């Protein structure tokens, strides 16, 4: 252990000296360019005054140390003179020296914390001491008054983490079934694991591919960008690669790549449309990666790994199959099996199914609005959805369910194209720029592909382009929107090269190592002039959701752009109103009788109450086991709840697709999994009943 520590400290030492030798010119120049770009292009530029300076200061410190584990209050005090003056007299000189100071300080503190963590983990934990931690939900970090208090925090934190490791099921035995003595036999192993987790966390910063000081600069730039709004981002050359990832044309891939989440966790940043991850229908952008397991060997813990590290592990392993454990945006944890596959660039990547029961209806799920591989206006998902509808119409469907749950958005052009499938012609939404110019966005084609009864499924994770589709179809009275309130992102971004004067974009884009900035440039409005920014789209028929309101989407973001409205006369011809109230009542009476929906509602209410209360967790194996057991039971219960086979329909593939599905074992396997998923989803089941009611009322 000791030599290993020494080696790391030595590495840190080298980093410090390298850092000291490096000039701050590059980050400072980039910051000036960033601020200028934001000033020039942002939809609602922020005035960089004393107040915003203080906010950026606090946000940056929170970003670096969200739980108050690195800094003590004296450190923050020492930085205080910068707080209100980062951009004094329209100059970012102060901000630049602040970045330099905090970069030096943070590295020193990390080094100090490394010594602290190593010393704590050298000795066994004393679980006889009465220790506890309190969960209060998220609040701003308060910092330890001194090093002694900080040490106490770390002891508690590491104890908690060690207990977590001890109580996590290993392959051979369930820890809950073990007694204290047996559990404690594994204590040394847990400490070893914690040490390596901490080192990985440390290396992620100190040995960052762009260098430690650039890592810090990027964090700071993003703090500034986020002060404009949460979707305005600074993208380093490497970050941009991931953000604007072209669709992988690699031979065989799992079809996903990672990005770093707000709190440093590794998230799914991109799903290759049509790739195995996409087709699993169980993974979405923003899912946090927890664990990865290959067919052989132990599962890899992905917490504290860097996004690039995980990408490398996934892409360069020799295995063709993996099990990926992710935490969904709604807090649920699930494990998904993926098989490496050749991603066919020509392939139609959306599958339509027939739900056959009292009525014969079509079902299409669209997890994201992808566009063509070569350009922004070619044939993307709207065309693929149209193909599926063509096939489904050959099967004489009487209605259609379009599932946009968890669809985080994507190409606006495709969203317009998709809505156009269902409406004849006319405007679908409006966009307003910083100069108050309003432009209308219209259906691209006259005519429709599908005229029958339509239900669109949404939830709190349906954002941006999917919200526009739902809103457009609602405004034309074309579809019933079913599910829960959507995310509330009604703004559009454009990615600019950082030092762009926009005169030679092509050259700029082709230069390597260039940073980019993704800037919010427009706010989007419905045809009635109302913006659903922050508020989202309320469904016509609401279904009880387990985690409704636990995560509040755009409303939880303090710097989110505020909604307003545009006063513009828009010419469009809505269809006759749909019987939303009547069908909502029918749905409510069904869900109130439905055992699973009733339990979901009860559970959701109790979770909401629990969230507001403090939770004290005693850091002793017995108490912790009880806590884990309770938590596990809750998860098992909710997982069971969510999987209730639908009684009112069976799932069929279209005749068009049958031959293709049969042609390949992987397709057969994936298809079976997907079809099972469709029968096990109580929300689809209820959407089917609503659509059945809609078909009946429209027949009358």
């Amino acid at each position, binding site marked *: 252990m000791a030599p290993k520590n020494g080696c790391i400290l030595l590495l840190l030492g080298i980093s410090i000296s390298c850092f000291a030798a490096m000039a701050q010119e590059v980050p400072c120049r980039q910051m000036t360019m960033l601020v200028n770009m934001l000033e020039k292009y942002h939809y609602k530029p922020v005035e960089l005054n004393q107040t915003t300076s203080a906010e950026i200061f606090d946000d940056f410190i929170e970003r670096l140390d969200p739980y108050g584990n690195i800094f003590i209050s004296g450190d923050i005090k020492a930085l205080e003179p910068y707080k209100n003056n980062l951009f004094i007299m329209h100059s970012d000189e102060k901000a630049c020296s602040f970045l330099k100071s905090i970069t030096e300080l943070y590295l020193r503190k990390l080094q100090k914390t490394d010594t602290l963590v190593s010393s704590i983990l050298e000795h066994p934990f004393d679980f006889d001491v009465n220790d506890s931690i309190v969960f209060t939900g998220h609040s701003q970090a308060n910092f330890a008054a001194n090093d002694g208090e900080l040490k106490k925090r770390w002891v508690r934190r590491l104890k908690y983490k060690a207990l977590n490791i001890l109580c996590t099921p290993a392959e051979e035995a369930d820890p809950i079934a073990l007694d204290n003595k047996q559990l404690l036999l594994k204590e040394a192993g847990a400490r070893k694991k914690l040490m390596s987790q901490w080192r990985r966390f440390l290396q992620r910063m100190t040995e960052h591919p762009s260098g430690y000081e650039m890592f810090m600069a990027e964090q700071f730039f993003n703090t500034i960008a986020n002060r404009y709004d949460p979707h305005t981002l600074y993208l380093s050359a490497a970050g941009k690669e991931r953000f604007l990832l072209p669709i992988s044309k690699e031979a065989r891939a799992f079809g996903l790549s990672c990005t770093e989440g707000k709190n440093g966790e590794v998230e799914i940043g991109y799903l290759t449309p049509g790739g195995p991850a996409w087709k699993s229908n169980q993974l979405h952008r923003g899912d946090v990666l927890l664990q990865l397991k290959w067919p052989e060997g132990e599962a890899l813990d992905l917490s504290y790994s860097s996004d690039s590290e995980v990408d490398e592990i996934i892409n360069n392993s020799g295995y063709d199959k993996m099990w990926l454990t992710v935490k969904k945006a709604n807090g649920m944890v699930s494990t998904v099996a993926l098989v490496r596959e*050749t991603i*066919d660039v*020509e*392939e*139609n990547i959306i599958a339509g199914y027939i739900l056959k029961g009292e009525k014969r209806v079509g079902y299409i799920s669209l997890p994201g609005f992808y566009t063509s591989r070569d350009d922004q206006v070619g*044939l993307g998902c*709207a*065309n693929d*959805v*149209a*193909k599926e*509808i*063509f*096939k489904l119409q050959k099967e004489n469907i009487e209605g259609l369910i379009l599932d946009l749950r968890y669809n985080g958005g994507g190409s606006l052009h495709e969203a317009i*194209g998709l809505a*156009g*499938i269902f409406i*004849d*012609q006319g*405007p679908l939404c409006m966009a307003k720029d910083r100069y108050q110019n309003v432009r*209308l966005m*219209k259906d*691209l*084609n*006259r*005519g*429709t*592909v599908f005229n029958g009864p339509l239900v669109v499924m949404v939830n709190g994770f349906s954002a941006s382009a999917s919200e526009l589709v739902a809103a457009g179809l609602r405004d034309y009275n074309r579809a019933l929107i079913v599910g829960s309130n959507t995310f509330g992102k009604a703004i559009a971004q454009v990615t600019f090269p950082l030092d762009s004067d926009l005169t030679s974009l092509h050259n700029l884009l082709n230069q390597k190592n260039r940073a980019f900035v993704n800037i919010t440039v427009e706010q989007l409005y419905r045809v009635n002039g109302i913006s659903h920014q922050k508020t989202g789209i309320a469904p016509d028929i609401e279904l009880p959701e387990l985690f409704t309101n636990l995560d509040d989407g755009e409303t939880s973001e303090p710097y989110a752009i505020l909604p307003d409205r545009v006063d513009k*006369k*828009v*010419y469009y011809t809505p269809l006759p109103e749909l019987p939303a109230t009547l069908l909502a009542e029918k749905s409510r009476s069904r869900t109130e009788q439905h055992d699973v929906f009733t339990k979901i509602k009860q559970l959701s209410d109790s979770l909401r109450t629990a969230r507001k209360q403090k939770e004290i967790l005693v850091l002793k194996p017995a108490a912790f086991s009880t806590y884990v057991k309770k938590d596990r039971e809750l998860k098992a219960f909710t997982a069971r709840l969510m999987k209730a086979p639908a009684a009112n329909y069976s799932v069929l593939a279209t005749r*068009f*697709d049958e*031959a*293709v599905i049969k*042609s*390949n074992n992987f*397709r057969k396997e994936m298809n079976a999994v997907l079809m099972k998923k469709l029968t096990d989803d109580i929300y689809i089941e209820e959407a089917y009943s609503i659509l059945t009611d809609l078909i009946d009322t429209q027949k009358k």
Partner: protein
Amino acid sequence: MRHLKLSSAGVIFLLFVLTPSLVAQKSKALMYMEKINREMDAITADSWEYTSEVAHGKNARKVETKRRELVRTSKMAMEKVGRMDAFEGSTQFRDSMVSYLRIHYLVLNEDYEKILNMEEIAEQSYDRMEAYLLAKELADDKLDEAGERMQEQQKQFAAANNINLLTSTDKVTIKLEKAGEVMKHYNVVYLIFFKCFKQEAYLIDASNKKDINAMEQNKNALISASEEGLDKLKGVPAYKGDKSLVYACKSCLDFYHQEASVKMDGVIDFYLQDENFKKLKASFDLKPQKERTNADVSEYNDAVKELNRKLNAFNKQNDGMNKARTGALNDWDRTAKNFLDKHIPKYK
């Protein structure tokens, strides 16, 4: 395809209906009115030359030359009338005439943005053609309004100065009126034809790009447009016993309807079959040769045969459609030309 400026007929006849001839004492007022009228006569003469060239001429450049002459005359008329003095302190009659001539001039030049909110028009329209037609319609309305205002001022001026107004019945006026009726019939049928013609162009474009979404939407739009057009055609009466234009339009619309409602599904179906075949082929190719079973090979061979059969049928159908389309459009062109040639009087 014959390209006819749709705006010409409406403008000409409105002008002419409004052009008065005066029988009254040679007073100052009469001379004032005659001076204005002379300008209108010049416009009428040029309008007639232009109309006749459109109907009987074969030379597009000559048609354009005549149009330019008409534009020039209108501009000069507007300027001349604009320079006239007030009559006994009043400029009302003169100004209403100038305002009318200005709108007339702008409409002739299709300079609609000076009289209409083109942005609003674009927003109300599906495409540029629809925006153009809507702008033309609204501009004609504006011209009508200006014409009415001018006519009212003319009447007031005449009444105040004891002048009797009589409608002109000279030869050119009669010919222009007649041509106006012909053009009115032509325009009604042409618009029905044109809507489907344009809609089919979108459909063909989508098909060339294999954009199934646009194909399906434009196919359904063409079905609606052709059905709506066929319905409208039933209500279009013969022009002096001549229904040739209506019949030619009907055969085009019948073709479009057949193409959209019957044939186009086959095209989309073929595209999707082709896509499926590519997937099957990819799966087949992935399997190493020694692992392929007899069933795999025979299934693949069957798929190849089936695709070839469909490809032949697809090509045959396309040839048939192309021939039918060319036939119907040639017939429409010929009929339209003959119709105008037959019914619009010759210039001299």
